[in-house]
């Protein structure tokens, strides 16, 4: 008996990893669909509560984070491009920036969270904050889940053998853009529910 390797070209023309990542992203969209759909329901039932509570959020920090994350999306796309063209220096450069952006995002989030805690705002404080911590928490976990392989790839690229698996980088890139994309929705939904000059009914 013998082992047979049947590694012919992917029938669909899309590399396995990339196809699988897209399928996974479809599934991720459904995951956040659950959150967003119920957000709409519960917000509609508690509009005043949601608008009032959202006042305490710091939209400038969120704006900073949006910029950071979009920037990291750009550098991620550039690093995919670099490794495809075999440009090791550029890959390392862009990947490093991406990772730094990701960490910046997390650090800003950390300050946001601790400032909430110091004002005695916790997930169980009210429904809006439950949402805030739930969605940003899951988003933050996705960020962490992206940083780990990024760091790993970057480290590998500094070894003697280097890192050349451009499909994997591309797949990771897809994931990272998705993480960015979730934030693009979270930003207006959580932080920008009302004009700044808006005077809330209570408080």
């Amino acid at each position: 008996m013998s082992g047979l390797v049947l590694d012919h070209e992917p029938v669909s023309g899309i590399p396995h990893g990339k196809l699988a990542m897209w399928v996974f992203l479809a599934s991720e969209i459904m995951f956040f669909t659950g959150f967003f759909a119920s957000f709409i329901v519960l917000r509609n039932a508690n509009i005043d509560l949601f608008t009032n509570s959202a006042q305490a959020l710091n939209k400038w920090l969120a704006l900073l984070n949006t910029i950071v994350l979009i920037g990291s999306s750009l550098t991620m796309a550039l690093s995919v491009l670099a490794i495809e063209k075999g440009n090791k220096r550029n890959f390392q450069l862009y990947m490093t920036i991406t990772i730094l952006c990701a960490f910046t995002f997390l650090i800003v989030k950390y300050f946001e969270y601790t400032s909430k805690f110091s004002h005695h705002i916790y997930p169980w404080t009210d429904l809006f904050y439950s949402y805030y911590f739930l969605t940003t928490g899951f988003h933050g976990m996705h960020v962490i889940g992206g940083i780990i392989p990024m760091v790993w790839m970057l480290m590998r690229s500094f070894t003697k053998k280097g890192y050349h698996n451009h499909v994997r980088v591309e797949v990771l890139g897809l994931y990272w853009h998705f993480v960015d994309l979730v934030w693009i929705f979270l930003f207006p939904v959580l932080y920008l529910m009302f004009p700044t000059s808006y005077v809330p009914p209570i408080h």
Partner: protein
Amino acid sequence: MSSPVLVSDTHHDVHTDHGHHEHHKQSFITKYIFSTDHKMVAKQFMLSALFFLLIGGALALLLRWQLAYPGEAVPLIGQFLPELIASDGVIQPGLFIQLTTMHASVMIFFVIIPLAVGLFGNLCIPLMIGTDDMALPFINLLSFWLYFLAGIVAAAGFFVQGGAGASGWTGYPPLSAIGGLGQTLWIVAVFLVGFSSILGGMNYVTTVLNKRAPGMKMFDMPLSVWAIFITSVLMVLGTPVLASAVSMLFFDNVLHTSFFMPDNLTVASPYANGMKHSGGGQPILFQHLFWFYSHPAVYIMILPLMGVVSDVLSTFSRKPIYGYKAMIFAIMAIAFLGFIVWGHHMFQSGMNPLLGTTFMLSTIVIAVPSAIKVFNWLGTIWRGSIRYTTANMMALGFIATFIIGGLSGVFMASAPVDIYIHDTYFIVAHIHYVLFGGSLFGIYAGIYYWFPKLFGKMLNEIWGRRHFFWTFIFFNLTFFPMHILGVGGHMRRIHDPNVYDFLKPFQPWNEFITIMAIILGFSQLILFGNIIYTWIWGPKAPKNPWNANTLEWHAPSPPPHGNFLAPVRVYRSPYEFSHPDRADDFHPQWLAPGEVEIEETTTVSETQNTH
């Protein structure tokens, strides 16, 4: 790497993703525990899920005992039950709902789904599309171990203070949100097993789209592969919604948030440490999210088996599938409609009755593709030449019971009829007719059919038939009377029906059901005996014991690492049985036109020897 590579040394593990050989013997751990080989993962899924079947069944028998003989100590086992949940061996109300909850959760999340997609997905897909392994072998391994971990977490519930999850397998809040640690573990387990499903599903989709053997178009795939493929799509799209629902439930349960908790509940959770729910949430929201997954999930539990049954039926009737494409479109239709009918579980839940109308109509429509499938199966055996192997008997049993289960579904699909039978034993009867009579029979059919391929040994047919007859007869005796209880108004999940006067006349039925259930349970041991016996002493299986056409029968039994001895090419559709121009009554997919197969492992052309 566009052309396949043949490697001849058995002992050398071939790592497809690195393209180099590692020259060491596989240790026990890498071979059996952390193997990424799809056949090993299939075996792992099969054995652990069958083990869970024993557990889940044992829980069912325990709860059956209480229903038949309320207040009487459970014989033999009773004395081992801890005093907290059972006094003097008598099952207490708290334990009873834990049993119901865990019975169903184990059966659904740890038995049927893993067998239907974990076992058959891993077993069938690579072999039947003629490739060496899954597209993502490591993800495959991960999927199994997440499942295993989830199993341990779920089972741990029984050993923590307050006992296991006790809000039904549907885990409706607010009840589930005020539960204790066992309930939390249940939530975590569901999340983990859902994650495992997603990983599995994404792997299957990729494999089917990317790794088909040359010559195999989508419409050359056997129905099993089609069914599992579409099921995987359901899993990928449905399961994450469950994951988000249980994430919110986890927050409610552990952090005392209020996604599903309305204002001012007069009970606080005994586990809340003085923390009060802030309110503002909606309990029904959870039900929507839950059923948005769990209705597709019931099709996740039946579609793969519909595929398996089609393959088995065609092979043993020696006849092409009647309406191959219609079968595929029916599967697609069921899958699509499956996403827009979830509300039929919630007719009485207090959602807008307008939605009730919508969901009623879509649910009734979903019976049409199911009807098409049933009729096509009948068309398949029509003018066939039926062999009554165990696998085929199980497949026919599947059809027989699925018809009954499906028809009872139509009653409930009619919302006004559901008013009365909702949450009664009528539902329980339906569940078991489709899940035991349907899914489990389909799984048994698949196990008897593919065991020779997977393990290289032939299961004992005589005991197999005994297994079938005992199961089929006692299955019907156990579950058919539940329709009667349901029509009588007997509620689900009640610890002692004798509280109600109008249920007292039904007590003899409860006793009868229990006795039948015990016999049914013990008849399943035949299967376990058969498997263990065969594994050790059974006769070796030939390469193609059933003279079937699909590619897996081209590989040796059991298939080596890499599955096939030579690159596979596909020449025809999978069900070319009894072609009038051929002497043989089958024409395998892998034979080139004019080629005949003369010996176990080599193929020779009619005119000249190619090797």
